[in-house]
């Protein structure tokens, strides 16, 4: 398996603060990778940096053989590097279906001409992709609703569906489960696992530790902009530094109890 995304020494500086500090992350094709860390650790900044929404000050990011540094956000999206947002960022005046269509339709210099002459620009492949995206996000039947009429959790899923409609190779999900209850969160986890069968690699940020630990193959842990640990869910769960970062206690003292707690959380999620 080759690396789909690979960052080396990726650094993002805000003022004097390194929001991302020499971050090395590798995402192999067809894997399900998670990134966890306490609030303010720099997780969203990392997604912003590789999708071109904040400038990087050092380091490199290679996606599918392309150096990303010179590419604009939409060019990265067109390469198949597609993200969702923590803060919704939907097209609020467009129906759910139109939200997806914006991402799904390719454009060329003669698109306007096709529009004006009423030539059909959708094809079966696009239609199928949209249906599939709606199904993964559990939004089937809500196509004609406006995002503003949906509850917060579902709005978040519109963002996920829109990312999937853009035909991604790698989808970067920024807290898709925030606002969902445990059952919904589990259902989403199951659907997301299913993406791997559609050749979509997934990179997931979430606070729902149960979700992350249960669906990811490999997990990175970030704190203060640095990667402090990485490994399989089992390894991360028992890593004392991770426990310390999350619970803010002396790593040695509370390690056993905290590890137990984390395990408990994932067990609950698994039930």
């Amino acid at each position, binding site marked *: 398996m080759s690396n789909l995304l690979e960052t080396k020494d990726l650094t993002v500086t805000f003022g004097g603060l390194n929001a991302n500090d020499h971050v090395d992350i590798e995402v192999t094709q067809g894997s399900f990778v998670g990134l966890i860390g306490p609030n303010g650790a720099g997780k969203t900044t990392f997604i912003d940096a590789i*999708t*071109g*929404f*904040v*400038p990087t000050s050092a380091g490199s990011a290679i996606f599918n053989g392309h150096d990303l540094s010179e590419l*604009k*956000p*939409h*060019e990265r*999206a*067109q390469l198949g590097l*597609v*993200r969702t*947002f923590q*803060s919704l*960022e*939907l*097209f*609020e*005046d*467009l129906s759910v279906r*139109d939200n997806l*269509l*914006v*991402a799904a*339709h390719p*454009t060329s210099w003669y*698109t*306007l001409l*096709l*529009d*004006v*002459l*009423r030539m059909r*620009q959708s094809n079966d492949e696009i239609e199928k992709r949209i249906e599939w995206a709606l199904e993964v996000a559990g939004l089937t039947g809500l196509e004609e609703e406006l995002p*503003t009429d949906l509850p917060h959790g579902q709005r978040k899923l519109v963002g996920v569906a*829109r*990312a999937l409609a*853009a035909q991604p190779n790698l989808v970067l999900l920024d807290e898709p489960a925030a606002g969902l209850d445990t059952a919904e969160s589990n259902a989403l986890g199951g659907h997301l696992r299913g993406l791997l069968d559609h050749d979509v690699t997934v990179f997931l940020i979430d606070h729902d530790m149960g979700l992350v630990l249960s669906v990811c193959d490999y997990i990175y842990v970030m704190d203060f902009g640095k990667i402090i640990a990485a490994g399989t869910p089992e390894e991360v769960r028992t890593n004392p530094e991770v426990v310390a970062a999350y619970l803010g206690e002396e790593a040695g003292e509370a390690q056993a109890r905290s590890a137990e707690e984390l395990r408990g959380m994932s067990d609950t999620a698994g039930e």
Partner: protein
Amino acid sequence: MELLFGLFAGLASGSVFALLGAGLVIAYRGSGVINFAHGSVAAYAAFTWDELRDMPGPTGIGNEGGSIYLPWFDPIPEWGFLKALHINNLPVEIHIMTDPPAWLAMIITLMMSAFIGLLMHFLVFRPLRNSPMLAKVVGSVGIMLYLQAVALLNFGNSNRADDGFWVFNSTSEPITNFIGMDKNLPRSTPYLAVAALIIGFGAWALYRYTRFGLATRAADENEKGATLLGYSPQFLAGLNWVISSVLAGLAGVIFLHKTMPNQLNLYVVSALAAALVGSLTSIPGAIAGGLGLGAFASMGVSATSYEWWPDWLPVDGVRAFAPVLVVILVLYFRGHKLPIRGTVGLGRQPRAPATKHPVVGVGVGVVIALVMSNIFISKWESTLTMTLVAILAMLSLVVLLGFLGQISLVQWTLAGISSFVLIRLASDGVKVRPMDFFVVTGPGWPDPLAALGGVVAAVLLGLLIGIPALRIRGVQLAVVTLASIVAIEDLLMRNRPVMGTAAHTMNPTPKPEWFGQYVGALDENSNQTDYWKFTLFAIIVTALAGLFVVNLRRGVTGRRFLAIRSNERAAAAAGVNVARTKMLGFGVSSFLAGLAGVLIAYKMPMVTSEFFSPFVGLAMIAFVYLGGITTVWGAVLGGMLVGGGLLSEFGSLHFEGITQAYINAVGGIGLIVNAILTSGEGISLLVTNQAKALVASMRGTDTQENHADEIVSTEKESV
């Protein structure tokens, strides 16, 4: 030496830019609104002062004086029996005293300014406080249009000169041999500069050292925080509107001896540049920016007297271009660094539903137009074609403002450029009519080609103006485009070396022939401008343009436009090339405006730059908003309502007193009401919604549920 003298001479106009700029800063800090009507407040105050002091201008217009006119007009025109009854529906004129002393006139004038400030706060900006930025811009543009029109209604012709008062007059001996430069400086110039500095310092001190100033600055930083500390942000906003308006009135009055009141309307462009130099927050910055801008523009004007100065850069063009340059530079270098940024959700944008059954609709429209045309009824020809021109111009606004959400105020001026370039390209130095006095020289292109040249010129200029939109957005773009209007008018349209005599003389378009068919409105036999082939041509062009816009909205492009209007950040994340799509929008919109220009060139017996004045353009925006900025039907309705359109002409034929100014004043009010009540969706969507609700209630279904939905959505909005 010329330049140094230019610098000093420019301090006079610089002082008024400075004071107006300071007023803009105060209003902005107090309420977060950039007030496009600020110059119009100054103009209304100047008119009031002039009327009180009874100084009839060179045309001798003006009554016995000593009266004030409240900033509104009698809304019910004097029709039929009402006229016989002499009913005054609304008091407008109040006679104070004949020949009031200057100090009293000054107090009354400043009170009038304060009153206008209060009205603006309570009737417009307070209701709009939680509306999207677009609605606030539209609201202030509506006030600008309204005040300008009401001044025209109440004070009549604006050609009045005022000699001024006290040290601010044009009658004192000039300062001869000013600091040894062998040139005469008007004596009022140093007084104006000193006045600007003193008033500016006073305003700065007020906000720096008083409790009120502290509270305003607190509310500016954090409105919620200020509320928690016990200050009412809305009370502060109202007070700031009063101070801002009084400053505008003061600026208008002390500068009146140098200009005519009506000119003050567009001083807002330079004032905006000055306020931007102060980052919209610093009064000293705005004062310095205003004085600097005045000096800079005046130095540019002085430079035109040098021999090396190129002919194609006229004096007026340089003066008008200076503020544009400052605005663009400031916004470019101080605007937000990253091009893509989420917009804060302030209320929702007007909906933009796709038009259903456009072919049927356009078909019906075409049939009605044909019936009204000269082919059947001769009376309405000119009005009909004016309506079609307006519809075309408004379609360009629907695409750019309605779909793409880019607040550009310049599109009507682009139509003008198209007209002028067409005439210039089609001319060949031969008289069109025997009666024409001047001839226009040019390459004499045959017509479809010349028309294409005009449209291409409009598109290229539109794209050029669109470039700043890649970096700046919303209200800032409105500022840039407003400044561009004035610059384009003076730099291009009235530019004799570029436009030839087309820039000054009034000639019809030569040979408007498309493939052997004459399509001009000028009937060579009767010398009337109602030739039926032009009407047919205009109907076809407008119908095709309407279908074009409908299909654009229904297609991939329209969806992407709406996506960008909604959220640029998300659009980029979804793989939309925001920059290219925006440029496409500017291009398409300018293309439609260019087509409108072509129709105007064929329609008018003469084309002048007055026809493309900024206020006509703002009226177009006002009426398309009223009709519905997001739909093709909105453009059709707006085209009929605007002055010269079918509905307004019908009104003025049947009711005395419905003049262009009356219609613009009503349009300004309509614009404001529309922005407040329907979040800018306009009449067309209002009617559609009501019709839908009616149908639903007749079927007896869902009405309850719909009602419940509405309540929920209003609740959401109020949250």
